[in-house]
């Protein structure tokens, strides 16, 4: 396994983002709880009617319960333990006997726990409990009734046991006190602490003003209700009315200020009432202190329950209405968002996405939104668009945790073109299903826009590529559609258009293929028609390709051009015409042809040189005959009485010998000639016969004989006389060379001619020599077994035969020796 070098040189784990209030938080909370517990205990003691064992209002339990409702269960033990010293500090040394104190702590804790568990289990936690009727109802039943009820049974029993107070009295007082506290103080604590109140902003200042006015009024009325000493004489009248004056304020609070305001108002009233009641004032002052307090408690409880419910109901309705408004607003935003991307030009897509991310983020109140896309041939997910509330760190770095210590599932929406990733809500509220559904719609709009952009990008890229390819070709390329009209041209046509003196007209899309041909070949060229026909045949699918070469004289030199037409590879058809300047290639071809001819000539010359001896012999025979005849004639004449007939015969013989010598010279000259090859009809038998005559002396010298086996009905072939003679000569010389060794039996070369098919003839030269090496490259240049050979004879023979459209090959004979065969195309007589 490779070393872990899959990182840059400076690898280091990225830094964690700041975590707000991490380990310090629980400790701070615990301290706060303890302090509050202590203070609450003191207050509770202060509000104790003298001689009554339990207090009228017992804050500590509510404080504990509030703590448990606001913090995660795993920290509860910490807070309860933190409260224990406070409890001890508050209660030791008071009226309670020492052994009772821890037990009371246990009962208090149990009440708080019961309340918290019941509420958490069925209604949730945090301020949200008071925002709906159902959960408030559960709270009232659980925390307001059941918990105090059950714990009071136990507590009263303990107190009775240890202090001897009357059981039911203790129970009743404790129950009502705790119930009242749970119904008023507990909600207030939860909502105030749980909402992290900040100073109200401008839009809330009106509400704050209203709240202030309300509170003032409440205070005034409450003071007058509960604190003014009551004249016994005004008992009946002033008893109930001032108390009733509280109610409008409280209802006002319930309707306008929500559960928080309601519970705070109730708390205020309660404090005033209890304080007055404990001091013997208030509407129930005529009653004994205990009953006074009890009446106050009952009145307050009876007021609190429906008012809390009312506040919760109104809050719930308001929230629903708000949610609906919000939903409608969002729908509008969504539709504007969709419209924004319709027909959006490609360049604007990114900008629009960024703008809308910002709007979306502000609307949803999230901290950041990022779009990741797969980039670089699936190399990584890259954040391509992102928005964040400043000064947010870049997406990716871990974000601060939410305040309740837990974590929310952050929406992550995956579409085909990318991933939309949302940050946490600014107020730490978990994402609701409705919100997630909303952002899913948004994500689809973004996804579609991105997908369209990607598709357009890909299209542009491929179009740009095609255009680049077309323009970079050095040939002139024209693309025609199935009707022969020009669809596209590349820049190679510009020089042609510029130099088009004959004015074939401009060449643009829509021009016909005739225009193309006229421009390419020149308007005066006789080949235009043929070219157009060729192009049309490709378009129609008759021919798979059309190639056409022509020469065009320009001022300085002759140029060669080639037109290649191939079908256009698409369903609708069409053709691609490409025009290439092949001057160079043609020049090289011509040059190569010239060199081949030079070489053939050179080989012929050297072959002739090798035959010099036999040529000399050939010439010598007629010369000897001429000399002898002439000298004989001279003698006859010198002897007098010449026989004139004899002299005539002598002279005739001399002439014929001379002619024979002249033939030899002619044949030699023919072989040594260096002219361009011509194509004429030839009689192969006669041609071969001539060559054999040339070689007859040589054969004689070597002691070989050449046998001719000709097909008398051999059809004529078309070719160059000298070149074919060269081939036959080469083959015969090779055959004779093969039998050069001594003691080769049957020193015969046989030349066969025959028809080898309806339109071809075959010539075979058979020797009785050593045969050829199998698998050898006998037709390759410079391959020779002769010590002084050049090895070019057979390659040249092959190129000549192949240029004549034939084939040449060699086979070993079963009887020894080899046979060289070649075929040529027979010239069939034209059918009349």
């Amino acid at each position, binding site marked *: 396994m490779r070393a872990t070098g899959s990182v840059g040189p400076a690898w280091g784990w990225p830094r964690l983002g700041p975590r707000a209030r991490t380990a310090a938080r629980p400790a701070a909370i615990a301290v706060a709880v303890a302090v509050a517990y202590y203070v609450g205990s003191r207050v509770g003691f202060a509000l104790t009617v003298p001689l009554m064992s339990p207090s009228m209002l017992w804050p500590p339990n509510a404080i504990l319960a509030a703590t448990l409702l606001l913090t995660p269960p795993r920290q509860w033990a910490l807070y309860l333990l933190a409260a224990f010293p406070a409890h001890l500090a508050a209660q030791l040394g008071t009226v309670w006997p020492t052994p009772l104190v821890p037990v009371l702590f246990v009962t208090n804790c149990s009440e708080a726990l019961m309340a918290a568990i019941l509420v958490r289990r069925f209604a949730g936690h945090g301020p949200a409990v008071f925002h709906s009727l159902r959960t408030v109802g559960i709270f009232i039943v659980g925390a307001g009734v059941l918990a105090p009820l059950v714990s009071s049974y136990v507590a009263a029993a303990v107190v009775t046991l240890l202090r001897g107070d009357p059981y039911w009295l203790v129970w009743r007082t404790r129950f009502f006190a705790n119930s009242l506290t749970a119904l008023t103080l507990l909600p207030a604590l939860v909502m105030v602490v749980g909402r992290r109140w900040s100073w109200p902003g401008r839009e809330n200042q009106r509400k704050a003003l209203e709240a202030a006015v309300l509170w003032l009024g409440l205070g005034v009325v409450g003071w007058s209700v509960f604190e003014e000493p009551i004249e016994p004489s005004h008992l009946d009248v002033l008893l109930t009315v001032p108390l009733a004056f509280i109610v409008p304020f409280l209802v006002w609070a319930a309707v306008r200020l929500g559960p928080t305001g309601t519970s705070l108002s109730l708390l205020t009233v309660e404090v005033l009432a209890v304080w007055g009641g404990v001091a013997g004032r208030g509407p129930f002052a005529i009653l004994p202190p205990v009953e006074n307090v009890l009446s106050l408690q009952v009145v307050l409880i009876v007021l609190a329950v429906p008012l809390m419910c009312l506040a919760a109901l109104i809050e719930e309705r308001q929230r629903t209405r708000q949610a609906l408004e919000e939903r409608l607003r969002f729908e509008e935003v969504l539709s504007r968002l969709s419209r924004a991307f319709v027909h959006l030009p490609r360049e604007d897509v990114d900008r629009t996405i960024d703008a809308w991310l910002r709007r979306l983020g502000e609307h949803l109140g999230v901290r950041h939104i990022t779009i990741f896309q797969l980039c670089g041939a699936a190399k990584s997910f890259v954040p391509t668009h992102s928005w964040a509330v400043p000064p947010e760190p870049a997406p990716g770095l871990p974000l601060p945790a939410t305040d309740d210590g837990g974590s929310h599932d952050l929406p992550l929406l995956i579409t085909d073109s990318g991933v939309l990733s949302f940050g946490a809500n600014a107020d730490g509220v978990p994402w609701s299903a409705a919100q997630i559904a909303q952002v899913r719609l948004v994500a689809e709009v973004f996804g579609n826009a991105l997908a369209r952009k990607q598709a357009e990008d890909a299209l542009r890229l491929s179009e740009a590529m095609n255009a680049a390819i077309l323009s970079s070709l050095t040939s002139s390329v024209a693309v025609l559609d199935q009707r022969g009209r020009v669809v596209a041209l590349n820049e190679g046509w510009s020089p042609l258009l510029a130099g088009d003196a004959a004015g074939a007209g401009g060449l643009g899309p829509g021009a016909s293929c005739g225009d193309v041909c006229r421009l390419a070949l020149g308007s005066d060229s006789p080949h235009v028609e043929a070219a157009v026909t060729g192009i049309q045949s490709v378009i129609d699918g008759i021919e798979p390709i059309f190639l056409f070469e022509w020469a065009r004289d320009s001022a300085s030199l002759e140029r060669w051009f080639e037109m290649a037409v191939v079908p256009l590879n698409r369903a609708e058809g069409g053709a691609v015409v490409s025009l290439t300047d092949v001057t160079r290639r043609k020049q090289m071809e011509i040059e190569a042809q010239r060199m081949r001819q030079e070489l053939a000539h050179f080989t012929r010359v050297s072959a002739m040189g090798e035959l010099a001896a036999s040529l*000399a012999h050939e010439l010598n025979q007629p010369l000897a005959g001429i000399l002898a005849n002439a*000298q*004989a004639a001279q*003698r006859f004449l010198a002897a007098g009485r010449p026989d004139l007939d004899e002299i005539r015969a*002598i002279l005739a*013989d001399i002439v014929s*010998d001379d002619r024979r010598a002249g033939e030899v010279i002619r044949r030699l000259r023919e072989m040594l000639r260096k002219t361009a090859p011509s194509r004429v009809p030839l009689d192969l038998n006669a041609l071969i016969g001539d060559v054999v005559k040339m070689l007859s002396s040589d054969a004689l*010298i070597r002691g070989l004989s050449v046998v001719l086996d000709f097909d008398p009905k051999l059809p004529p072939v078309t070719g160059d006389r000298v070149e074919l003679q060269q081939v036959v000569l080469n083959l015969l010389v090779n055959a004779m060379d093969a039998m050069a060794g001594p003691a080769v039996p049957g020193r015969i070369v046989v030349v066969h001619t025959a028809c080898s098919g309806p339109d071809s003839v075959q010539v075979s030269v058979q020797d009785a020599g050593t045969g050829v090496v199998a698998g050898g490259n006998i037709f390759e240049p410079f391959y020779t077994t002769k010590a002084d050979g050049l090895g070019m004879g057979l390659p040249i023979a092959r190129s000549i035969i192949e240029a004549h459209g034939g084939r040449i090959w060699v086979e070993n004979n079963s009887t020894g020796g080899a046979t060289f065969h070649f075929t040529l195309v027979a010239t069939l007589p034209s059918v009349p």
Partner: protein
Amino acid sequence: MTAARLLVAVVDDEESVRTSLRRLFRAFELDAATFASGQEFLDALPSKPPDCLVLDLQMPGLSGLDVQRRLAAGGIRVPTIIITADDAPETRERCLSAGTAAYLCKPFDDCTLLATIARVVGAAADP
């Protein structure tokens, strides 16, 4: 003494050479018998042995040298003149060592031929 006309045999596959040489010998007042191949000559030999033999070297079938060897093998002593277009010294050596009396290259002058015939016949006549 009356010189009987000498009989000269000419063996050459070339028709024109035979014809011209026959004419030439007639002009020399020599009798000439011409043969187209060595085999023809050997067949006709017993009936009429010539006084001199003019022999072409390069012939199909029996070459000049072959004829000469046959004659030697048969113990027939006929002075032989080889005529040929081949001028190579080795050939000349070979012929002379095979018993050729004279070696002439074509084309040859008539006086040269006559003189050669006289010489070889004269040499053969002397014991």
